[in-house]
């Protein structure tokens, strides 16, 4: 202990900071989630138990949010990672205008979420007076206009998914272009000499070589998608329950401050449920990745 004294001293600022702003609130949230009938104003509670969890899990709004979040995760993570890989491969194989395209593909990353949401609203809108460009296109091909922003559930979910894919893709393209560039040219030359078909080069050489990066993107993608909130707000406004487009984080926020606000116990319970889901999924991801990721590349 004495030997390590200096080490602990150097760690102290970070430990203090983390204790105050991370560990203490975490424990607090845990306690809140078990305190039944907690009153924020008087700081009192009636009892201790699992009622908060039971309430949240039976709340239709929460179940809707849970469903929305899962759909979002299952659709957007594979779709965005796959598309990003395709684009990154295409970018790596061209020489001319490569930098220009790299910049173009990176633009959504530096653009504000809400501003992009506004653009999407205009693109997908359908009002009594005018249609957005997407609806004009649908009309052009002989279809009926669909209200993507305030219409049927599938239409709204579609827009949310497209929006999410579009907003998370630039980062993935960036990472994957870098990963592809780091694969040594000699492997491809060796494969060429041995007349390896292109598809086999991709599956047997490229993919294994960049697999650590792909798994990194999938894991962070899952975590990010589970925590989605601002994207839905940008498209459908703050009353997400009414729009049937709420996410788990949105539900937590509503419980704290929203229209039905003032229930920190329910919010805490929902937050812990989310935490457990993310933890489980991440653990599964890590287990899968340990088996299939190539080491020592």
């Amino acid at each position, binding site marked *: 202990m004495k030997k390590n004294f200096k080490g602990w001293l150097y760690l102290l600022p970070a430990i203090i900071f983390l204790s105050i702003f991370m560990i203490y609130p975490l424990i607090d949230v845990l306690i809140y989630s078990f305190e039944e009938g907690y009153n924020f104003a008087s700081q009192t509670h009636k009892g201790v138990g699992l009622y908060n969890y039971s309430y949240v899990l039976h709340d239709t709004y929460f179940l809707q949010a849970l469903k929305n979040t899962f759909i979002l995760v299952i659709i957007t993570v594979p779709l965005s990672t796959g598309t990003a890989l395709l684009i990154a491969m295409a970018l790596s194989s061209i020489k001319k205008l490569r930098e220009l395209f790299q910049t173009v593909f990176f633009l959504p990353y530096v653009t504000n979420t809400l501003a992009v949401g506004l653009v999407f609203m205009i693109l997908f809108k359908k009002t009594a007076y005018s249609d957005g460009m997407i609806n004009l296109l649908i009309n052009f091909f002989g279809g009926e206009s669909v209200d993507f922003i305030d219409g049927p559930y599938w239409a709204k979910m579609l827009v949310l998914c497209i929006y999410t894919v579009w907003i998370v893709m630039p980062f993935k393209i960036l990472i994957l272009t870098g990963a592809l560039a780091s694969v040594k040219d*000699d492997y491809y030359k060796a494969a*060429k000499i041995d007349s390896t078909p292109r598809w086999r080069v991709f599956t*047997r050489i490229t993919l294994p070589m960049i697999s650590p990066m792909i798994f990194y993107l999938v894991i962070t993608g899952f975590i990010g998608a589970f925590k989605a909130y601002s994207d839905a707000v940008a498209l459908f406004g703050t009353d997400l329950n009414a729009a049937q487009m709420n996410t788990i984080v949105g539900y937590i926020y509503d419980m704290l401050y929203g229209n039905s606000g003032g229930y920190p116990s329910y919010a805490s319970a929902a937050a812990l449920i989310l935490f457990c889901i993310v933890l489980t999924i991440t653990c599964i991801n890590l287990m899968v990745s340990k088996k299939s990721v190539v080491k020592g590349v």
Partner: protein
Amino acid sequence: MKVVLEKLTKRFPNRNKKIKTEVVAVDNFTFEIPDGTLVGLLGPSGCGKSTTLNLISGLEKPTEGKVYFGDTDVSDMAPEDRGVGLVFQNYALYPHLTVKQNIMFPLQNFKGDKKLTKEVMNDKVLEAAKLVQIDMLMDRKPNELSGGQQQRVAIARALVKQPKVLLLDEPLSNLDARLRLQTREEIRRIQRETKVTTIFVTHDQEEAMSISDIIVVMKDGVVHQIGKPQNVYDDPTNLFVAKFLGTPPINVFKGKVKNHMIFIGNSAVLEAKDIKDQDVYVGIRPEGFIPDDNGSLELKLKGLEVMGRDTTIVSTHEACENVEIRSIVSAETKIIPEMEMVRFNVKPMKTFLFDIESGERIYFGRQEKIV
């Protein structure tokens, strides 16, 4: 399969785009490699030897000239259609595949009629692995192997598809000194056993001399000399080749020919009939010195290196281009380190004259062109 290079030329645009002149990596290389020989492409770095190898493998396209495998013109053929095996300098083994999978990789690419069954593939892989003696390491990953073992796997992978030509790019440069000796013998043995025409690139003259049937000495894209290692050593065509081959290197003096005698400083060392008076470079191989108390060439003694089998006399002379002169004499020679000067006679067949301007060889006395 014999390999024929015909006026092979490769020019690259200069990397600095402002400079319009092109870089000539390989200049007008014509050579016929007989079937089943081991050829060493030798030269200092940047001399175009790797580019030559890439032109043969098809990874680079020639600017001019042709490459033939046997009687087939392969100049415009893609590398995958040429049927060559290539061993990369850093081996390029796939790190996520086992030794067995690595060696099997080329076989699994065969299509159509050539497609092999699992059993045949396994047999071929085992055969190749046995040839390079790694059949007990089949389930290891490349990063669990030593450098020498990785090298063997790379050779097995190149050989397993029975290539027409085996190409090796600096095969020994990533190995330590002891392993290098061992591996070069291995390459020789494998080549003898498979009888595949093999071309390898190296900057180490000892490596090239020791195992090649034929060596090709290159510099700045130009082939300077082609021949059997001993012949090239005994009969260099110019000063560069003479300097590049041999350890310790040849001793080069600034001298002159006057009245049909070769002079180094003021000493007339050898007779040179029919040579007109001119300034020359005189190159004397380390083994070309005969210690003699009445010898014609007097050198200032700097030290002795006793090896047991023989002795290296280190000395200096003001006309010498090298920092010091190294001469190898038999261990019985009576020379004591306290002597200030040593006297030598020189062997005419171990002494070469070169033109002072062009560096071209000037034959004198009984010397004849061998190569």
